[in-house]
């Protein structure tokens, strides 16, 4: 199937300066950790939602929040005119982004069935195998870990396996109430979600090797997400029952959409991590989200209150394993030789799709390409103000359910997330100007 590509001007990418490579690798690792914090924090608003609402509807409302965030955040950070100029350079990535969005929506829906049928303790570790699959795809398709040496291989693969073990322990500890049901289908659903998410990183890597900005990629990614999720929700619930459920969910719309918004910030960091350290390292680092989700659950929502010594031992052991795995991966950043093989893959992509060599190179180095628009347009301000207005309106309708929440811990964790957002955002700005 890998037929000869149409004739295109040759793309030549020279080696990147060692100092620049090191700073981009460090930035990618930092983004991976920030992604974990924000993706994990996204679970918090969802915990405020009553279980009466069907999971498909919960997913659809979250995706609506995700859609708004995926357009308004790029409008705020760089302006949508950058999206247009990126699409002119690499139009094929629109199709890749929509495909990735469709995969995300199907995987997310599968996790709902997996949790229903086998419980979180079995489902979570199974779909967490996505990072192992990401390593495989990164190696096979994008020259990641080529010429990396056995120490880096051990760091990345050993780290991912250690994180998998930690994830398993945390999932077991956090789900002692889940009731196993139709085991085989549930296991298949969880594995299916892992395979979909692990394979979804092929479009991610494709985009970032070719030089696309993550802020541009996500705007098309979310079209695939929203369309697929809407089709699934209407197909499974029926249009009228779905509408009634959405109307009756008015008091929790804000929390769900806020969860989607927070999730997008985490995903954006994940995209930058993928761009600068590849999928084999970026994805396992982002999977530290489970640690953050656990922190929110235990400290703010008192989830393990009354749990025995075994449960706490599982939490501590799982957390240590995850942290050790993440540190091992963070310390195994790509060498100049490995990075040059990434450039070979970028060369191949540029040649196949006729993308300008300088655009590809500038993208990989996080530099500006050509003269880019600097001011925001009317559309950008409409997106920013419209989204802000909608969230304010939904917040006015929102009701906080009566449940024991530790406000002090919620504030502390929110501050920790915000400080990561600020420091990582400043690092991204200083190093790449959000490229």
């Amino acid at each position, binding site marked *: 199937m890998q037929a000869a590509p149409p004739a295109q001007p040759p793309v030549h990418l020279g080696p990147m300066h060692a100092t620049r490579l090191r700073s981009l690798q460090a930035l990618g690792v930092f983004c991976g950790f920030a992604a974990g914090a924000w993706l994990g924090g996204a679970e918090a608003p969802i915990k405020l939602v009553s279980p009466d609402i069907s999971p498909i509807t919960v997913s659809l409302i979250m995706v609506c929040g995700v859609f708004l965030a995926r357009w308004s955040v790029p409008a705020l950070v760089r302006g949508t005119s950058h999206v247009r100029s990126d699409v002119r350079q690499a139009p094929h990535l629109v199709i890749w982004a929509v*495909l*990735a969005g469709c995969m995300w929506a199907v995987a997310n829906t599968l996790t709902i069935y997996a949790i229903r*049928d086998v419980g979180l303790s079995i489902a979570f570790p199974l779909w967490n195998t996505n990072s192992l699959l990401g390593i495989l795809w990164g190696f096979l398709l994008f020259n990641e870990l080529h010429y990396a040496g056995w120490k880096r291989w051990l760091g990345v693969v050993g780290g991912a396996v250690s994180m998998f073990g930690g994830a398993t322990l945390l999932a077991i500890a956090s789900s002692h109430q889940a009731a196993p049901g139709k085991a085989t289908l549930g296991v*298949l659903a969880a594995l*299916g979600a892992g395979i979909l998410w692990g*394979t979804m990183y*092929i479009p991610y890597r494709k985009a970032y090797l070719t030089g696309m900005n993550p802020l541009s990629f996500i705007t098309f990614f979310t079209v695939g997400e929203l369309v697929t999720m809407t089709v699934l929700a209407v197909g499974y619930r029926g249009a009228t029952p779905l509408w009634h459920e959405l109307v009756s969910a008015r008091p929790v719309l804000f929390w769900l959409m806020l969860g989607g918004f927070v999730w997008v910030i985490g995903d954006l960091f994940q995209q930058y991590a993928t761009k600068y350290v590849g999928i084999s390292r970026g994805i396992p680092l982002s999977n530290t989200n489970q640690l953050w989700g656990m922190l929110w659950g235990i400290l703010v929502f008192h989830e393990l209150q009354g749990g025995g010594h075994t449960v706490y031992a599982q939490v501590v052991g799982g957390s240590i394993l995850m942290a050790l795995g993440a540190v091992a991966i963070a310390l195994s950043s790509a060498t100049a030789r490995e990075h040059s093989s990434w450039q070979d893959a970028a060369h191949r992509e540029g040649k196949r*799709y006729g993308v300008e060599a300088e655009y590809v190179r500038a993208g990989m180095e996080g530099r500006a390409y050509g003269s880019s628009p600097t001011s925001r347009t009317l559309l950008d301000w409409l997106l920013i103000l419209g989204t802000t207005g909608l969230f304010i309106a939904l917040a006015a309708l929102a009701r906080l359910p009566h449940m024991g929440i530790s406000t002090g811990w919620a504030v502390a964790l929110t501050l920790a997330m915000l400080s990561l957002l600020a420091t990582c955002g400043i690092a991204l700005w200083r190093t790449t100007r959000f490229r």
Partner: protein
Amino acid sequence: MSPSRTDGSCKLFRAIATDLHFWIPLTVLLGGLVLLDKLH
């Protein structure tokens, strides 16, 4: 649509259709949809 633009789109779709990398996620997506249908 102008002829040059149509030609450009044809080239683009040909490049995607002959890229093995494209068929891997597409196949996985279709598999996921079949699985979802069975679960439902």
